[in-house]
């Protein structure tokens, strides 16, 4: 029975992959969907698929540098993926703004119903790159502050401040636009209460 059939942790698989490169396949199989989905939410599907492939190739090639004590390699992988997206940030921003104007999602997905998608896209497009990275890692990759700090190689305090700023800007922009006037919890709750 080979070792990767006993579901090693990411850390174990990475350690094993230093002597047996094939052990890295476990990392790929385990995290492909999450990384690919994160990237497909950030950029168009074709580009996301390319970046996903590049993420795992780079991770494999640099696996010797993985020194994290944690068993979970997600922060490391999302960090690589986010770094790769940075080379396309202008495109991401352009696409979000185009979405806001046209209400047609360049990602080819139903982002949010009707006008709401465009409003949120516009708000997201107004954030700076660092804020978007932190926000998406928090909201989409579901990393915590510490993991985001590790992924982006920035201090935890920076993570908190960027996230705080991003949320503040979004709150303000979305409040002005009210993207879900009939779908917000407040409205539903108000209707329930008669």
């Amino acid at each position, binding site marked *: *029975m*080979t070792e*990767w*059939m006993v579901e090693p942790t990411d850390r174990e698989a990475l350690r094993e992959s230093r002597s047996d*490169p*094939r052990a*890295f*396949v476990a990392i*790929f199989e385990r995290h*492909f*969907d*999450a990384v*690919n*989905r994160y990237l*497909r*939410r950030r950029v168009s*599907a074709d580009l*996301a*698929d*390319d970046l*996903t*492939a*590049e993420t*795992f*190739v780079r991770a*494999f*090639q640099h696996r010797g540098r993985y020194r994290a004590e944690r068993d979970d390699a997600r922060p490391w992988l999302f960090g690589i993926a986010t770094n790769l997206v940075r080379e396309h940030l202008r495109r991401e921003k352009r696409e979000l703004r185009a979405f806001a104007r046209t209400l047609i*999602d360049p*990602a080819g*997905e*139903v*982002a*949010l119903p009707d006008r*709401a*998608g465009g409003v*949120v*896209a516009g*708000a*997201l497009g107004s954030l700076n790159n660092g804020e978007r990275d932190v*926000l*998406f890692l*928090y*909201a*989409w990759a579901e990393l915590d502050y510490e993991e985001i700090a590790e992924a982006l190689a920035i201090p935890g305090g920076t993570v908190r401040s960027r996230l705080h700023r991003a*949320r503040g800007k*979004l*709150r303000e922009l*979305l409040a002005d636009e009210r*993207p*879900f006037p009939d*779908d*917000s*919890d*407040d409205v539903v709750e108000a209707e329930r209460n008669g």
Partner: protein
Amino acid sequence: MDELDYVRRFRAAVLAGQRDRARIALLDAIAAEAPLSRRRGLRLVLLLALVAITGVAVGSALGVGDRIVELIEGKPAPPPIAARLRDEVLAKRIMPLFADVPNVSTKDAHGVVAIETRGGPVALWTVPTRDGPICYLVEFVRLSEREGRPHGDSRCMPHTSPNAPIVWTSTNEQVDGHELHVLAGPVDAVVASVWLHSPAGDLRRVAQAEDFFLLALPDLDEGDRLILRDAAGRDLRAFEITPAMAGMFDGYDKKVTGPPRAVIETTDSRGRPLRLLLQPAEDGKTCVIIEARGRSSFCPPADKLRASSGIAVYPTLEGSIIYLSGSVGPEVSKLTLRYENGEQAEVPIVERFVLYDIARAHFNDGARPIELIGGDSEGVEVARQKVGQGVFGPKSSIWLPGDVSP
């Protein structure tokens, strides 16, 4: 709902895409690092092989080859695959030549390697047998997915040896309009690498894992050769692959030049005709053709199969029947088949050829055929051969057509 909820819901319906492209890129990277001769027990030796048969490929470290798309080595075979391999082994246990094959545990069935072809992935699965044949399944994954059951060719083949370092079977399939020729089989430990050499001079490494090789060709070109090399990179043997050589024994097909003549006409255990025919062929050769279950065998020149002396009679499993066929030397006038239970039967010899159906009662333990005894015209024993001896077995060597080694 706060601003974070909006973000979480934004493009929340996005699904992950197909893994194939990323997996191929990763496996290329892994393959580029894999040492060429690392073997750890039965674990995979991932030799590089990768070629752009599909046209999507990026160059690999070694150039062209079949693109490995899945490192399935060691992974347990899915139940339908394991069942298919188990059935193959059970079928072989019926055969006298593999009578000693132990039962195998389907949990030991596992993957070896999968390569990408124009017709989708082709996977190689195997199940270990102790001292028995090497059993494996070449699976056309795309067809399996469509049909909901394993689609491919399962075989049990003899073990290799330094003298017979490679055995292969060839499977042809049409997948989505693409004709695929897949060669696969066991490779002996003396072979460090297998290469495909085209008539144009291209040399590319063939996928090799866990003592198997797996190769897909979009076309069989006249002059394609398989070259076996040792760890020092020296050529050990070379075998020509020709379109006529669809399988291991198909290399001697000849164009017939006259009508067939029946030499032996009998029936099998199920009452169907079982015939041995001789038919003139080109180059002054004569073909020996066996018709069983309504199908004819290939056309090998008779002088290649007629024994110069002794007994050269071997069992063949054809569907649900087993027959003995072959020839005897001129000194053998009488042939007796002895069974485990002490029974004996006289096997007719016609023009030194033999074709004899084994009754189903003799498929069972304790009743199997074990030995052929040849006698001269005076009834004196002049030859003796265990059933199946000399052709298959862990330490036997086998003869391969198309061997172009010096």
